[in-house]
C-alpha cells in the first residue's frame, strides 16, 4: 500500500517539479532593468555573457545544492565545483563540513567569491561600467562605482551601523558555520558579512521547503532583489533597535 503511494508520488510529483518551473517561466517575459543598483544586470547584458536567468538550472541548484545558490545564479554568480559536490550522497556531508569551515574561520562570501572566480564575469561587466563612465568624462560616477564596488569585502554591509556583532567567543562563534552546514554554505558566509537569514531558509533545513526559493529562482527572481525587499542587509540594525526598545521597555 505505502509502496504504491510512494510509487505514484514519484511518478507524478517529480516530473511536475521539473516541468512546473518551465511553465511558469513561459509567462515571465517582463523586461527588468534597474540602473540605480550597480549590481543588477539587464537580461541583455546577461545574455551577452552567456548567462540565462531563471528556468531549470537555478531551480535544480536551489533544490539540490542550496536554496541561496539558485537565487544567486540569477544574479550572475556562478557555482563552485565544491558546492555541486555537496549534492553527492554521503560524501556531500563531508564537503559540507569543509565548506562550513570557511564560515567558521571568518571568511566572507565576497572574498570567497573573488578567490574562487565565481564572480568573474559580473565583475567584468562592472569594470566596463567604470571604464565607460571614465571615457565619457563622468568621473564622479566612476568614483562612486569604484568606491561602492560590491566586489570589495569592506562594502558589506553598505550601512556600517548594520554590522553583525562580534561572535568570536562561546557558542556564538559556531552560528555561521552551523547555519552554513544545515542550510547552505553561502548562508553562513553571507552571515559573516552581516546578511540576515530568511525564514524560508530556516525551514529549508527540512529540505522540502527548499522548493519555495527554488521556484522563485526558476521564475528568475534574484537574491539581490530579495535582499532589498526583505531588508536582509539591515538585519543587525533591526536587531539592535529591537534590543534598545526592549531595554527601554524594561527600564520604564
Amino acid at each position, binding site marked *: 500500500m505505502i509502496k504504491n503511494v510512494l510509487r505514484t508520488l514519484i511518478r507524478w510529483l517529480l516530473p511536475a517539479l521539473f516541468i512546473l518551473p518551465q511553465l511558469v517561466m513561459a509567462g515571465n517575459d517582463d523586461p527588468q532593468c534597474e540602473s540605480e543598483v550597480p549590481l543588477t544586470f539587464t537580461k541583455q547584458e546577461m545574455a551577452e555573457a552567456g548567462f540565462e536567468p531563471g528556468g531549470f538550472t537555478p531551480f535544480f541548484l536551489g533544490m539540490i545544492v542550496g536554496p541561496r545558490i539558485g537565487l544567486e545564479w540569477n544574479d550572475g554568480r556562478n557555482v*563552485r*565545483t*565544491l558546492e555541486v*559536490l555537496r549534492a*553527492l550522497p*554521503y*560524501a556531500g*556531508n*563531508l*564537503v559540507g*563540513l*569543509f*565548506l562550513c569551515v570557511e564560515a567558521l*574561520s*571568518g*571568511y*566572507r562570501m565576497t*572574498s*570567497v567569491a*573573488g*578567490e*574562487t*572566480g565565481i564572480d*568573474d564575469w559580473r*565583475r567584468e561587466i562592472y*569594470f566596463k561600467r*567604470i*571604464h565607460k563612465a*571614465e571615457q565619457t*568624462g563622468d*568621473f*564622479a560616477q*566612476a*568614483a562612486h*562605482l*569604484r*568606491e561602492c*564596488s560590491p*566586489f*570589495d*569585502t*569592506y562594502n558589506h554591509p553598505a550601512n*556600517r551601523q548594520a*554590522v*553583525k*556583532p*562580534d561572535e*568570536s567567543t562561546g557558542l556564538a562563534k559556531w552560528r555561521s558555520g552551523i547555519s552554513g552546514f544545515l542550510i547552505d554554505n553561502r548562508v553562513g558566509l553571507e552571515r*559573516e558579512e*552581516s546578511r540576515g537569514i530568511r525564514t524560508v531558509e530556516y525551514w529549508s533545513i527540512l529540505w522540502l521547503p527548499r522548493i519555495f526559493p527554488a521556484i522563485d529562482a526558476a521564475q528568475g527572481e534574484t537574491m539581490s532583489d530579495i535582499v532589498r525587499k526583505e531588508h536582509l542587509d539591515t538585519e543587525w540594525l533591526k536587531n539592535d533597535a529591537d534590543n534598545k526598545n526592549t531595554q527601554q521597555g524594561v527600564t520604564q
Partner: protein
Amino acid sequence: MKPRFLGRMTLILGLCSGVLGCTSLVHIPNPVPPPLTGRTVAAPLPTVWSASIGALQGMGFQNVAADEHQGVLVTEVKPLAGNTAHNRNSGIARFAVERDIYSEGQSRLHITLLALEESGQTEIRIAPELKGKVEKRGDIKYAPFKPATEEVSDSDNENQAIGVWETLSSNGVLEDRFLAALMDLLHSDNAARQSGDLLPDHSTP
C-alpha cells in the same frame, strides 16, 4: 554495496574535495579596475593649472606645493584615522588591499601637467601616494569594525609607536574625485565665460 566500501569512497571524495577547495583559494582579484594614470583635457595649461589647485583645495588639501617649471602639484600628507574600513570609506582614499588591517592611513597626490602646444590641450598625470599602518597582519575576520574616529593629531601619532607604514595600491577613487572636481571647475569656467560673452553690456550708456 558494502558499508566499508561506501565509507572509503566517502573518505576519498571528502579528501579530494578538501584538496580541490584549498587549491582553488589562491586567486585574489582586484575589486575595482586599475586607476586612471593619465587624461588629456581640451584646455590650455594655465587654465588647467589654476583649476587643478582649486579642485585639490575643494577636496580638502589645503597646502598644495607647486613647481611651475616642471608642472607638478603636490598636496600635503592627509592623515586618516580609524581602521581600514573607516579609511576606505572616509571619502579621501580607500585601499585596494585585502587581508590587512590598517589603524591609520595617509594620502598624498602628485599631479603633473603637460601642455600639448599644437592642440591647446593639457595632459594630466596623476600619481597618488597611499600609506597604511599595519596593525594586524593576516586578520581575515574584518569584523567587528570600530566606529569611525576623528583624525589623529601629530601628538597622537608619536604615542602610537607600534606598527609599520606600508605603501598601498590605489583603488582609483582619489584620482576620479580629483578629475571630477577639475572638470566641474573647467566646465563652470567655460559656462561663465560663455554666459559673460552673451550678456548684454549695460555699463555703457
